[in-house]
């Protein structure tokens, strides 16, 4: 793509990488949280529910600042993780963490909805046929909620691509390190004559978002067809 400058190109690549890892790393905990909220009864369930949804209702700046306090080099968790060589502060990994946290509630909601649509009677039937709980989950529940997982993942990916407030607060706006698409657009708009570069990045944003949406529609339709059993 000749029409993108190296700096712009860098922002696009970084954004894709950040969103990919944010989505991938976020899926297992999102699946667990969705399962707990949909199926388990335990004290503090409402607390977990609130915690999961917090990034959705807090101002992103607040989420970013809380991440900085917790995962910053001097934060309690950040200092601990630094010992094993995992640094979030002002790195692309931090941008991925911020994007993942912001996308988390959307992913959980999508998976939870599909979990609640699964008929527990099918899981009972699997148990009478000899499947233990983990096997029931892998062979019945998981295939049946696959459309929900795909929808959640794509929604999360799109949210991660667009995440700005928490990212810029947590890991700042360093070209090549933490300057994602939205940060780059913002930066270009701050300098005179940067509108054309900003506009090009806006076009890329729209293209990526649209193709993600179309891909998810296609995948979900295929999965739905499998699940409907026709």
């Amino acid at each position, binding site marked *: 793509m000749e029409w993108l400058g190296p700096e712009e190109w860098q922002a696009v690549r970084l954004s894709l990488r950040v969103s990919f890892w944010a989505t991938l790393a976020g899926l297992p905990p999102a699946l667990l949280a969705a399962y707990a909220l949909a199926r388990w009864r335990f004290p503090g369930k409402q607390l977990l529910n609130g915690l999961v949804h917090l990034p959705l209702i807090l101002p992103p700046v607040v989420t970013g600042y809380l991440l900085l306090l917790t995962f910053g080099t001097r934060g309690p968790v950040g200092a601990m993780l630094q010992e094993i060589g995992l640094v979030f502060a002002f790195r692309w990994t931090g941008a991925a963490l911020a994007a993942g946290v912001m996308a988390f509630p959307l992913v959980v909601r999508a998976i939870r909805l599909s979990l609640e649509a699964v008929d527990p*009677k*099918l899981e009972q039937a699997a*148990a009478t*046929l*000899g499947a233990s709980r983990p096997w029931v989950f892998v062979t019945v529940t998981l295939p049946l909620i696959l459309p929900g997982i795909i929808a959640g993942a794509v929604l999360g990916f799109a949210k991660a691509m667009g995440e700005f407030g928490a990212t810029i607060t947590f890991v700042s706006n360093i070209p090549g390190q933490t300057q994602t698409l939205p940060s780059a657009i913002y930066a270009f708009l701050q300098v005179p004559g940067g509108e054309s570069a900003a506009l090009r990045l806006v076009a890329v944003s729209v293209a990526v978002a649209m193709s993600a949406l179309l891909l998810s529609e296609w995948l979900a339709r295929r999965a739905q067809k499998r699940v409907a059993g*026709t």
Partner: protein
Amino acid sequence: MTLSVSLQHRFGSFDLDACFEAPAGITVLFGRSGSGKTTIVNAVAGLLRPDAGRVAVDDLVLFDTGRRHWLPPHRRRIGYIFQEGRLFPHLSVRQNLHYGARFSPRRPTHAEAGRVVEMLGIGALLERRPGALSGGEKQRVAIGRALLSSPRMLLADEPLAALDEARKSEILPYFERLRDEAEVPILFVSHSAAEVARLATTVVALENGRVTRQGPAAEVLADPAVTPLGARAAGAVLSAQVVRQHDDGLTELDAGGTPLFIPRLNAAPGTQVRVRIAAHEVILSRQRPEGLSALNIIAGQVQEIRAGDGPGMLVSLDTPAGRVLARITRRSAAALELAPGAICHAVMKSVAVAPEDIGGPGRNETPGLR
């Protein structure tokens, strides 16, 4: 193999306290909806944890609250045929059929699987998805799926209730074959008198969570005291043999030496059948009636008379063909001076025997009924 069940369970105002044994063949749990039938099968399968009780298949204890023993459902190896089939929608028919095999210690061989598929007539459906099957086809696949998990026993919770009459008569013969060919005991829940009459080797009658009577089917069904569905649904079962087909559309049966005429039954002479005679279709007469359109007249001796709440009474009659139940009014009983020991004739119209009242033989027939 024998299943022995003893259960106490309470939820809300409903109180279940049931104790019975299910030997080989089909044991039908018989009672109105809400009498606790499904609770019992779910407890046997391990899908419901009862307050107290013990369930065992021969020496293997599935659970025993006294000894705090609980085998989780996936380790019980009990094939459960659900009312709604519950096929896995994301798997093909073939994958559904083989789902249980991977968890079973003894995988069915290729030949065994082939036999089940052939018996159920589902060979043409193997690559289809459950969503593309009819209700009857789904239920046949569900039966096959339960059979191929190499179960210790089978549970069937009203597997025909969701089907229309045509589909029911499509599935019933498969259960008859299971009863006569499979080695495992089958616990079958039903609230249909015709199903019980056709399928049951043993009947466990349930009323409001209590077992009111259990025993061989012919015995329990001919007992005027046992009417879990009310006297209107009472009816005895006769064992008979097809003798010959008549040109006028009738089939002649032999029940203990007595000829019995019923509407055309497509079966070869010599075939053993069970015929359910609904109690309200039987007329009693002290003298042998003459000039009557009804073709079946059997002499017998009154065994027992049981009065109901309404104007009706149930009379059980010992005949050479077996025990017959007749539902008559108190007024008639008084007019005929019926009492135990009295000799009278049971009159039955041929056309009163519906096709769903006629079934295959079953291997554990009570002797003495022949």
